[in-house]
């Protein structure tokens, strides 16, 4: 399954990171990898909130992903 990281950077530099399609605890490892590389590039990202997605939300996202795949196949 496709793994996606969507990062929204607001006007004041605050960033929100959405991890999509990561099985199990792998998103936590990737979050650590990302913030580590950012730090080495000079961007220190201090966590404000970390919200684990509930099962329902993950199911909705997986459904949307499946729909996108079907659309691509249809084309």
């Amino acid at each position, binding site marked *: 399954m496709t793994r996606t*990281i969507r990062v929204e950077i607001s006007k004041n*530099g605050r960033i929100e990171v959405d991890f999509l399609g990561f099985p199990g605890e792998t998103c936590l490892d990737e979050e650590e990898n*990302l913030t580590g590389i950012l730090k080495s590039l*000079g961007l220190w990202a201090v966590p404000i909130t970390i919200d*684990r*997605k509930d099962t329902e939300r993950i199911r909705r996202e997986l459904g949307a992903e499946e729909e996108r795949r079907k659309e691509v196949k249809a084309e």
Partner: protein
Amino acid sequence: MSLISSYKTDIRLTQALSEGKSVEEDPGWDILHEAVWAAADEFTGEVSHSVKDFYGRTFYADWAISTPEIPRGIGINVDRKTGQVMFVYDSYGLEGYERRIQEIKDRVLQNYSAIAVSKALSLLNYEVDVVEEKHATGGKKVIVTGVL
């Protein structure tokens, strides 16, 4: 499991310093250069290496952005010992200057964040796409998407 996390950000160029190199060799130096030039362009400003104070005295800066609204300029300096990025300016006697200065500071940080996030995702082998959404009231939102 997947997650959503939010962070406040700060620029500190410490990588090269930790390896005993000069701060100019830090990977963040080029990112900051790019972020400053992009911010200047977005505010129809110019980049130089000096700012002026209320008395007209000139001070050196690693980069300085001046715009029609900020004629004295705002300087961006990197501390050679700590890598901390600092903004220098003199707003004395000018109304609305602080707000305009804050807009420039925010834009430099936003541009820096967008460039750094794009580079980081590329280093993690993601295919990266960047979209900028302009706000009607000014400013912008940047969305960086990495797909693996």
